[in-house]
């Protein structure tokens, strides 16, 4: 049992906001699976950063393109 504090406001709150008694109506696992799939398919930010660095490098030193292609 919690301690009473300010009965006037407590009563007002109880009359304004009724207690919630709501059960989950369906299984959320399919949504959880979708969430997991979305996140695993997402490309991490550092991969994008690496790609940006590579693009910059090739812009400034186009001569590096054949070297890159050779190593690929």
């Amino acid at each position, binding site marked *: *049992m*919690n*301690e009473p*504090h*300010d009965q*006037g*406001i*407590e*009563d*007002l*709150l*109880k*009359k*304004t*906001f*009724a*207690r*919630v*008694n*709501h*059960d*989950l109506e369906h*299984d*959320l*696992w399919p*949504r*959880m699976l979708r*969430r*997991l799939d979305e*996140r695993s398919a997402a490309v991490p930010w550092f991969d994008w950063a690496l790609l940006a660095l590579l693009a910059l490098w090739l812009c400034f030193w186009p001569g590096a393109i054949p070297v890159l292609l050779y190593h690929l």
Partner: protein
Amino acid sequence: MELLEQPTELLERFARGELEAFEKLFRQFQGEVYGWIVRIVRDPGLAEDLTVETFWRIYRARARFDPGRNFGAWARRIASNAALDCLKGGYGKNARRETELPEDFVSVPVPDPGVQRDLRERTERAFQRLPAKLRIVATLALVEERPYKEIAEALDISTAAVKLRVFRALRLLRKSLKQMGVEP
């Protein structure tokens, strides 16, 4: 909310990242986590989204979970944090809302019809003005009448801190209501 003890073996498999173990835990605890969140956010659709968000956080943090601990209590703490982020506006503004409620669904339970509409609206406005940290405690302690100990465990704070937040929430509410011309 009943916090069932889990076999350590299942929790160890979850901590290792086995999806099957996570699914078992999800199915067992989704109802309890949802029940806790809906009391805080008072919107069943949003509570469903936050339940998925909570389990996403749980899954990400699995490597840090100690299988010797109570999974239910840990899940409730993470759920409380997710709900708190939502109240602060950190989740609801950015997240895509997956569940749209049916039009006939009453998201907030029907209040006592004896209370004048205007008074109710002022009280709601005053309540919404409370800082999220105080609002979550006030909702659980004063509206939902959950024991302080339970609230303290869920928010990972002391019982004394819960009492202090309830006291501060009531003081701020009284001040706001007074400014609106309401003297409870």
